[in-house]
């Protein structure tokens, strides 16, 4: 029996992702991924008007709010029999495209880059660049004031950490620049979303807000600035890290996992929906030399609760899914169900999408020896950000073209009323991966609602056959030379951009120090 360590990021927040690994001879021998918070917001929806669902589901999460809104609206489109006009699709895609840009940039710089650099190397910067000297002073000032949040890595830098002062200081500068870019990209989403966070304009049948030429112009101006950052900073940084100091991690394929990939497909580039930014598809057991993509069939999705704290049942299709908790279930170790496609655990998200679409840039990296894993995941995320930026330009042009033609429509008004009974599914490719919402309608009200989110696919526990989920499998064999410093485990899990709690963010300081500020 190896040494067991537990990485539980829950310190302030009630419930999140906990990773437990068993280490033997400096490597991960076994792993368990656990969501420690009960979800089940779906229960809130039962009995409500189906048209409320996009707004309620948008409150599931503070990171991926709009993805739930769009998946929910699409489930309603399906159940109501609504045909979203091309104008409505374009507006939806532009609002969602803006979200992609800030989501991926934020993930790289603010949620993961610091796992790969030794931040203290800025102290050794000897250059004279004014901006970089200012960055150095800012960071050293924070260190001096003992206020290094959020730059201090939790784990000790290891041999893979970049410590070249010039590279590190440039990365930290980009970290700070990316904060500003992020704030700006947020405002982009609000142009067609009506507001942000929690867009208001996306409803069953299309969108509610007619565009005018100024909105498109504003969006394009902001897009220009984002495109410049993506093309000139983000992508070069990821490639410089991935093919430079991190190449050993990349070619080892640290964090690969099952090598099964799934994309539901999303983001139409033509009115018929034949050409998608992210095509749907399924790959079992990737062979990089001979990529075989199978068609996606939603009937093959099931969720197992064998190792989760739910009332035991055989694996169910999401239409029939239930949320009955059973905390006495002895084999359980998580609140996350185990989704399977054709009985197999799948990876969803940027790497899955870029492999399924056989993206030439990603395949070029594979030819250089990069294997599917943590580093490849960051590369795929950067590559697809550019695809989205390019698509946003196309959607702006298409929108200008469509809105100046007679009969321009953004909504299928004939299908606004809920059907007496019905069922529908809504798929979307969220930045984190394949997202599906399933709805059943009875007496014009919601009878059952289920969401299977990307992190459920990947943070999944074992299933009936005791096959591990993707996070768990991706950790097997990961080098952990020092059990006190499991930095590689963290790198692997963060490369998936995990998002589980989706909910609670109340201020909860560790101490009760706050009590002295009580007013009444």
């Amino acid at each position: 029996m190896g040494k067991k360590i537990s990485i539980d990021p829950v310190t302030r927040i009630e419930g999140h992702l906990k990773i437990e690994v068993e280490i033997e001879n400096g490597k991960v021998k076994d792993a368990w991924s656990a969501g420690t918070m009960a979800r089940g917001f779906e229960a809130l929806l039962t009995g409500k008007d189906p048209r409320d669902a996009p707004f309620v589901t948008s409150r599931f999460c503070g990171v991926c709010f709009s993805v739930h809104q769009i998946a929910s609206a699409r489930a309603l489109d399906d159940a109501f029999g609504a045909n979203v006009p091309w104008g409505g699709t374009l507006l939806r895609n532009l609002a969602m495209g803006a979200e992609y840009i800030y989501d991926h940039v934020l993930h790289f710089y603010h949620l993961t880059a610091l796992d790969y650099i030794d931040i203290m190397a800025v102290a050794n910067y000897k250059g004279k660049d004014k901006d970089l000297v200012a960055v150095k002073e800012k960071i050293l000032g924070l260190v001096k004031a003992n206020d290094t949040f959020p730059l201090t890595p939790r784990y000790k830098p290891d041999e893979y950490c970049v410590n070249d002062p010039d590279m590190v200081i440039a990365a930290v500068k980009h970290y700070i620049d990316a904060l500003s870019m992020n704030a700006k990209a947020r405002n982009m989403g609000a142009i067609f979303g009506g507001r942000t966070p929690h867009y208001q304009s996306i409803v069953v049948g299309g969108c509610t807000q007619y565009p005018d030429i100024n909105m498109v112009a504003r969006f394009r101006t902001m897009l220009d600035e984002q495109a410049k950052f993506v093309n000139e900073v983000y992508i070069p940084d990821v490639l410089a890290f991935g093919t430079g100091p991190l190449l050993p991690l990349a070619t080892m394929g640290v964090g690969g996992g099952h090598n099964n990939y799934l994309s539901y497909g999303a983001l139409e580039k033509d009115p018929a929906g034949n050409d998608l930014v992210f095509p749907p598809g399924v790959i079992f057991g990737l062979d990089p030399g001979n990529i075989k993509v199978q068609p996606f069939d939603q009937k093959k999705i099931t969720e197992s609760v064998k190792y989760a704290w739910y009332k035991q049942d055989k694996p169910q299709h999401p239409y029939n899914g239930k949320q009955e908790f059973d905390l006495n279930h002895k084999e359980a170790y998580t609140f996350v169900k185990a989704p399977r496609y054709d009985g197999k655990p799948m990876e969803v998200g940027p790497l899955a999408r870029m492999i399924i679409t056989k993206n030439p840039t990603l395949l070029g990296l594979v030819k250089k020896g990069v294997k599917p894993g943590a580093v490849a995941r960051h590369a795929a995320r950067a590559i697809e950000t550019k695809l989205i930026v390019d698509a946003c330009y196309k959607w702006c042009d298409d929108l200008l073209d469509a809105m100046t033609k007679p009969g321009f429509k953004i909504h299928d008004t004939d299908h606004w009323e809920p059907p007496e009974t019905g069922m529908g599914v809504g798929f979307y490719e969220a930045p984190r991966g394949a997202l599906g919402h399933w709805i059943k309608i009875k007496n014009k009200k919601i009878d059952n609602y289920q969401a299977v989110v990307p992190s459920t696919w990947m943070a999944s526990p074992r299933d009936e056959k005791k096959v591990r989920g993707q996070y768990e499998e991706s950790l097997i064999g990961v080098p952990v030379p020092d059990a006190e410093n499991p930095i590689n485990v963290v790198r692997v899990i963060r490369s998936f951009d995990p998002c589980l709690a989706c909910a609670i963010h109340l201020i909860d300081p560790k101490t009760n120090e706050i009590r002295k500020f009580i007013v009444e």
Partner: protein
Amino acid sequence: MSTSCTYDVPVPDEKKKTVILGVGNLLLSDEGVGVHVINEMMHMHFPPDIELIEGGVDGLRLMNVVVEVDRLIVIDAVKGGGSPGSIYKFRPEEFATHADTSKMSVHQVGILEVIRLSGLVGKLPETTIVGVEPKSVGMGMKLTPEIQSKVPRIIELVLDELKDSV
């Protein structure tokens, strides 16, 4: 419940841009108190340089709001160990949040961290947090009666805060 015209809304210095930001999760009863309060305040009339924003469950991404204002008043649920319905008022710099947040992912970055990150970008607004100790953070789209009954008082405190900063 309508609160229009029942409060005396102060008029601040015109050059100062003020944002009153309500945050929280509407699906988790009292966790959404900031959202309920701000929605209630939306019925009131404010001068154009005071903006009311419902921030929902947003974490780090509220930075677009924070970096653009001079004065920020945040209304949020706060677990401070007091009895349910306790109201706190503090400035972020008045107590140090523990630094070990780097291991967390974005949705765990709370409003205090957003404010501190905004400092890295350059500008830090003068900030006050009006916090409310929740009774229940269980699933539900309504406040518990205990917290609901505090809403008018919370609004009064926020308006007092505006007066102080005029």
